[in-house]
């Protein structure tokens, strides 16, 4: 049997239904025989009941609306970043690192742009970006997210990571063996990078749907820091081939890619 002090000590837990059955039973037995404790419990119960009837502060409708739209905005921003994450669950640290890299890249591009006082031609900007991406892919030993010479491994890997399906064909018999695939990002969206090799030279073939605003004469060539870039449009798809190969070899590569893809 419990005494009053012990009972009072557990009275609140008893009220809150937080006691195990054995202790609950003992408290109940004591309350039945002790008028003082029974009154104390009655007070506590009345107070608890009164507290539970105090209504919540009502949530302001404007706040609810604000949060709803803020979360929608966050959700769509997140949906845009998911394709570049390596796994189904995007690691934010990874995304932050990527963002930092992009900012750095953009600053670099900006610095180059201003130092040379060149007009911001979108084609030149894109060429610069793909060349920068090519250099980066060689620098950080991150040439391929999926390293395989089998086109039937590389092509399915892109599924679900992009909203388009880049053509992936192994050109080993033409002297351009497939190395792998990688996801990358240009200022205007995600892009597939299909990686090929010619002897010891690496070729990044960047692929994404043509935006429709791309005008002018194709193929376009660009050259920076010893790298050559060749860009063309075929069947609604924009291609950039970047390498340290000579322009003539790059031209040859382009012809091979073009022939493999139905126009």
């Amino acid at each position, binding site marked *: 049997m419990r005494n009053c002090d012990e009972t009072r000590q557990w*009275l*609140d*837990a008893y009220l*809150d239904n*937080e006691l195990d059955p054995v202790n609950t039973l003992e408290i109940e037995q004591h309350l039945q025989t002790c008028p003082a404790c029974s*009154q104390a419990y*009655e*007070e*506590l119960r*009345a*107070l*608890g009941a*009164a*507290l*539970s*009837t*105090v*209504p*919540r*502060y*009502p*949530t*302001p409708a404007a*706040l*609810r609306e*604000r*949060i*709803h739209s*803020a*979360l929608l905005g*966050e*959700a769509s921003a997140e949906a845009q970043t998911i394709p570049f994450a390596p796994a189904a*669950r*995007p*690691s*934010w640290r990874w995304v932050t690192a990527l963002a930092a890299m992009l900012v750095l890249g953009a600053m670099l591009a900006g610095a180059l742009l201003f130092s040379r006082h060149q007009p911001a031609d979108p084609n030149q900007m894109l060429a610069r970006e793909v060349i920068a991406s090519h250099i980066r892919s060689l620098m950080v030993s991150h040439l391929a997210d999926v390293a395989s010479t089998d086109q039937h491994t590389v092509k399915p890997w892109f599924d679900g990571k992009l909203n388009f399906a880049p053509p992936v064909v192994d050109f080993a018999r033409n002297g351009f063996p497939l190395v792998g695939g990688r996801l990358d990002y240009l200022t205007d969206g995600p892009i597939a990078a299909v990686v090929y090799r010619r002897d010891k030279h690496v070729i990044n073939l960047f692929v994404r749907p043509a935006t429709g605003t791309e005008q002018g004469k194709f193929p376009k060539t660009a050259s920076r820091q010893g790298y050559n870039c060749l860009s063309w449009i075929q069947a609604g798809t924009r291609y950039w081939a970047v390498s340290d190969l000579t322009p003539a070899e790059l031209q040859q590569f382009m012809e091979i890619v073009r022939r493999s893809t139905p126009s």
Partner: protein
Amino acid sequence: MILPHLDAAYNLARWLTGHDQDAQDVVQEASLRAFRAFDGFYGENGRAWLLTIVRNTAYNLLQKNKSLRQTTPFDEELHGNAGASECATPLSLLRGAEDEQNLRAAVEALPDEFREALVLRHQDGLSYREIALIAGVPTGTVMSRLARARARLKDFLAKGNREEEAS
């Protein structure tokens, strides 16, 4: 994930900050933090998780505003156990508690950790374990906080009744 618990979130923030605009700021910030951190959340209790973030955000704000805000420290002399318990009967208690504003004011006069325990227990119906999770303390501490909070409320209300009868 967040929207179903918005009412509980705003209510807790409102009780802790004691101010509508502050509470709105807290809930908005906490919701975004909860959403962004959603990836790091693998538990099953989304409500407790969101309320934890709301609570921490509210305390951060209170800390920041401490110098600006006029705080009312809990006065043991005024609200302490100055022999009031004996006089409190269920009847007189209820008379004080019947008045919702009176009870609200009494809860508002309590220290933060007592107030949050009461609000989570009585308005959200959370278990000791959930409250412990949110407040970051052992469940035993939750039990003693609730017991002490109720004891203080009882004394506070009994005192109010006595003063009313005296005047």
